[in-house]
C-alpha cells in the first residue's frame, strides 16, 4: 500500500517562456493537512492547478495514490483524477441552487440525495439547500464550495486561498470550522496561502514556495524555528539576524556565545525570534530601548546594540513597564538558528523526515 496521497517529481511549468513552477518535488502522506505558503506570484496556485490537472506540466510527473496522472506523455484530464478543488472565488454555478451545486459531482441520482444532505450536514448548511448562490453570505458560499468538492468523496482536496475572500472576523471562525471538517472526513488536504499565520496555525505540514521553487518543507514548528535561509525566516515571521561565526554547536556573535540548533562551522548569520529575547532590568545594560510598540496582549521593544544594530524583543503581557531611552540587559535561553549569510542554502532535506 502506497503511503503517499500525492507525489510530485521534478515538476516544471512555464507560461510564454516565463517559468512559473521550477523542478518541484514533494511527497504528501495520506491524511495530511498541508499548507503551500509563498508570496503572491510564487507559483503556488500553478502547482495546485498542475496537481488538479487544470494545467499540463512541461516536465516531471505527478502520482495520485500511487497512480501516475501526469508526466511522460500522460495527462489524465481533471474529471478523471478524483481530486476535489475549492476555488479562490468559489466558482459556484450561478444557475443552480445549493443542493444542485453539491450534487453536480455525483454521478447517479439514487445516491446523490442522501449524499447531498449528508455533506451539507457536515458543513452545517442543511437548511440552505434551496438557496441560490447569490443569496448566500461569503462564509456560506465557501462552505457550499467545500461541500461540493467533498461530496464525490475524493481522497485529496485542494483549496486555493480558501480564506482570502472572507473578512477578518469571519476568517477566524471559518478556519477553525474548515480544519475540523477536513479532520473529520479524514481526507488529505492541500491549501494555498500567502498568510504565514494561517499556514502555521492550520497546517500540520508546510511547504514554502519562492519564485517557483519549493525552498523548504516540514512541520510548522520546524520551519518557524529552523528556517534554512534569511528569506524563509523573514517570511515566516518577525526575526532578528546577527553576523556570527559558527563553531560546531556554538556560535560567536555580538551577544557572546550562543547555542545553535544545527551544527555549523565558519562565517554565517544567526537568526532568533523576538520572543526569544528576554530583557533584564539593568540600568547599566549594554542595550538601549529606542522604540516601544504597545499592543496590549504583548509589546514590542526595539533594542539598540553597541554596534548600532537594532534587535526586536517581544514581551508577552502588558504589565512590564519600559521607557524609551532606558538601558537593559538581555538573555537568550533557547538555541538559535544559524545559516550561511547569502543565499547559499544547504541541500533540501527529505521533506517527510521531520515528522
Amino acid at each position, binding site marked *: 500500500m502506497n503511503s503517499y496521497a500525492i507525489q510530485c517529481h521534478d515538476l516544471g511549468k512555464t507560461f510564454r517562456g516565463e517559468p512559473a513552477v521550477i523542478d518541484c518535488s514533494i511527497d504528501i502522506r495520506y491524511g495530511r493537512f498541508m499548507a503551500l505558503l509563498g508570496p503572491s506570484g510564487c507559483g503556488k496556485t500553478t502547482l495546485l492547478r498542475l496537481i488538479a490537472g*487544470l*494545467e*499540463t506540466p512541461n516536465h516531471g510527473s505527478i502520482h495520485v495514490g500511487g497512480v501516475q496522472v501526469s508526466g511522460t506523455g500522460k495527462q489524465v484530464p481533471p474529471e478523471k483524477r*478524483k481530486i*476535489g*478543488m475549492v*476555488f479562490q472565488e468559489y466558482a459556484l454555478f450561478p*444557475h443552480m441552487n445549493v443542493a444542485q451545486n453539491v450534487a453536480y459531482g455525483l454521478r447517479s441520482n439514487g445516491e446523490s440525495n442522501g449524499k447531498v444532505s449528508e455533506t451539507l450536514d457536515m458543513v452545517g448548511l442543511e437548511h440552505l439547500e434551496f438557496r441560490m448562490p447569490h443569496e448566500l453570505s461569503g462564509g456560506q458560499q465557501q462552505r457550499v464550495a467545500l461541500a461540493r*468538492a467533498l461530496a464525490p468523496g475524493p481522497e485529496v482536496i485542494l483549496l486555493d486561498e480558501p480564506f482570502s475572500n472572507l473578512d477578518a472576523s469571519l476568517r477566524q471562525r471559518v478556519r477553525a470550522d474548515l480544519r475540523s471538517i477536513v479532520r473529520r472526513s479524514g481526507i488529505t488536504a492541500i491549501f494555498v496561502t500567502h498568510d504565514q499565520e494561517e499556514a502555521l496555525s492550520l497546517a500540520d505540514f508546510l511547504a514554502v514556495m519562492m519564485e517557483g521553487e519549493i525552498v523548504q518543507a516540514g512541520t510548522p514548528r520546524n520551519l518557524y524555528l529552523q528556517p534554512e535561509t534569511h528569506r524563509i525566516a523573514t517570511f515566516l515571521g518577525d526575526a532578528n539576524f546577527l553576523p556570527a561565526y559558527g563553531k560546531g554547536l556554538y556560535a560567536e556573535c555580538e551577544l557572546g556565545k550562543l547555542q545553535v540548533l544545527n551544527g555549523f562551522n565558519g562565517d554565517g548569520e544567526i537568526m532568533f525570534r523576538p520572543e526569544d529575547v528576554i530583557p533584564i532590568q539593568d540600568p547599566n545594560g549594554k542595550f538601549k530601548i529606542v522604540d516601544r510598540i504597545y499592543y496590549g496582549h504583548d509589546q514590542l521593544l526595539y533594542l539598540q546594540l553597541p554596534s548600532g544594530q537594532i534587535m526586536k524583543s517581544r514581551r508577552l503581557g502588558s504589565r512590564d513597564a519600559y521607557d524609551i531611552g532606558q538601558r537593559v540587559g538581555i538573555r537568550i535561553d533557547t538555541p538559535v538558528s544559524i545559516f550561511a549569510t547569502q543565499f547559499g542554502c544547504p541541500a533540501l532535506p527529505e521533506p517527510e523526515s521531520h515528522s
Partner: protein
Amino acid sequence: MGQVEEPQLPDKASLGSRDRPRNRVLRDAPPLLWVVALLVAAISMSPLLYLIVRTSQLGGTLFEILAQKRIWTVFAQTGLLTIVVTITSVFLGVVFAWITVRTDLPARSLITILVSLPLVLPSYISAFSLIVVLGPRGLLQNALSGFGVERLPSIYGFPGAWLALTLFTYPFVFLSVRAGLAGLDPSLEDAARCLGRGPWQTFRHIILPQLKPSIHAGALLSALYTLSDFGAVTLLQFDSFTRAIYVQYTASLDRSVAAVLALMLALLTLLILAVEFGRPARKRYYRSSAGAARRAARSALGKWKFPALFLCVAVATIGIGLPVLAISVWLIRGVVYGDEHLGVHGTVLLDSIFASSAGALLTVVAAFPVVFLAARYPGRRTQGVERAAYIGHALPGIVVALALVFFSARYAVGLYQSFALLIIAYQVRFLPLAIGALRASLLQINPRLEEAARNLGHTPREVFLSIILPLARPGVLTAVALVFLSCMKELPATLLLGPTGFETLAMRIWNATEEAFFARAAVPSLLLVCASAIGLSIVLSNEQKGVAV
C-alpha cells in the same frame, strides 16, 4: 472539444499582453476547436476569395470591362450617394441626439422612440412607401390634383434613394451619439464655461471633439449600409453598384461584368473599413471624475423650440408615418377592389420562417466555436480567426450571393439554387451578429466555473451542456433572435439563391412593388413589421435579463 489528451502547441508570442489574466484559461486550445473554428472562418472568407480568383481568371477581358465608361459612372454614383447619405445622416443624428439628451424639448422620450423606429423597417418597405405616397399617381399627387397639380418632382433616381437610405441610416448615428453624450463628463463643459467660452464655442471645442468616436461609429455604419443596400436602390431605380450587379446578372449571359462589379464593391467596402481602423489609435475619452457624476444641465431651446419640434415631427412622419399610411391605404384598397392575391399564401410565410430559422440555427451554431476560441484563448491567432469570421459584415448581401452562385455553378452544381446554399449565404452574412451577441455573454462566465465542473468529474462536452450553455442562454437567445430577424428581412441573397418556387415575405414585397401591384405588398409588409417588433422586443428583454456571473 472531446479529446482527452491536450498536446502542447508551441505558442509563446500568441497570448497578447493586454489580456486580462483572470478571464484566461492558460491551456492551449483543443485542436478540434481550432479545426471547427477555422472551417467557419474559411467559409466566411470564401466568397471574397472566390471573387478574386474568378476575376483574376478573366485575364485581358478584365481590362476591357474596366475600360467601360458605365462602370465608372456606377462607381461615381455609388460614391456620391454614400457621401451625401452619410453627411445627411450625421447631421440628423447629431441634431436629434443633442436635442433629446441636452435640451428642454417637450415630449423627449416619445420623440426618442419615434425617431429611432425607422431602423426597424427594411429599406425596401421605406422605398415602397415613398413610391406609393410620393411617386407618380401616388397618394400625395392624388390629394393635390384637386388643386391642379399635375406633376410632382420624380421620386425615382437619386432623390428617392437619398431619402430612403437617409431615413434608414440616421438612427445609427442618433443611437451612437446619444450613448456618447450620456458618457460625457459635464465638468469639462463647466470648466470651459468658467474659462470664458460661450455655449457655441464650448460645443465646438469641447463637446464635438469628444463625440467624434461615436459620430465616426455611426457614420461608418451609415456608409457601409448605403453601399450594401439593394432593396431601396433597385425599387427606386438608382444605378448604384448593387442594382448594376443585379441587372448585369439577370440580363446577360456573360456574368464577368457582374463579377468585376461585385469585387469592386467588396473592395470599396473593405477600403472604407481599412481607412477607419487604420487611423492612428484613438485618444482616450474618459470622465475625469470617477463614480456618479452630476447630470449635465439641459439648455433651454427658447425660440428654437418650434423649429426643433417641427424637424422631429417631419422626419418621424416620413420615416414611420408614410409606411403606416402606405400599408393601410393599399390594404384597404386591396380589400375594396377584391384583389385575389391580396393575402399571403401560407407557403410564403412558411418559407420565410423555415429559411430564417434554419439560417439562425446554423449561424449561431457556427458562431460558438469561433467565439469560444477567441474568448477563452485570447491571442493573435484566435483573434485572426474571429476577424476573418467578421468579413460578412463588410460584404454586401448581393456580393456574397453572387460569389456563391459562381462557386456552385463551377464546382458544386448540385448546390446551385439549393436551400443549403441560401443558408450558407445567411451564415456568412450574419455570423458577426451572432458572434457579437454570444461573445458578451460568454465573457461574463468565469472560466473557474468550467474548471470546477471538470474537477467534479465531468467531461468537456458535459461541461459545455450543463454549465456554459445554460449560463450563456441570454446571449444565445439574443443571437438567434437577431439572426432570425435579419434573415427574415434579407433580400438580395434570397432573390439570387432561393430555390425555384421558393418565396419569402421580403421577396414578395419587392416583386409586388416592382410590378406596381402595391396592394400585394401591403400584407407581407405588415407581417414583416410585426415580426421585427416581436424579435426586437425579445432582444431587448434579453439584454435586461443578462446577469453578470
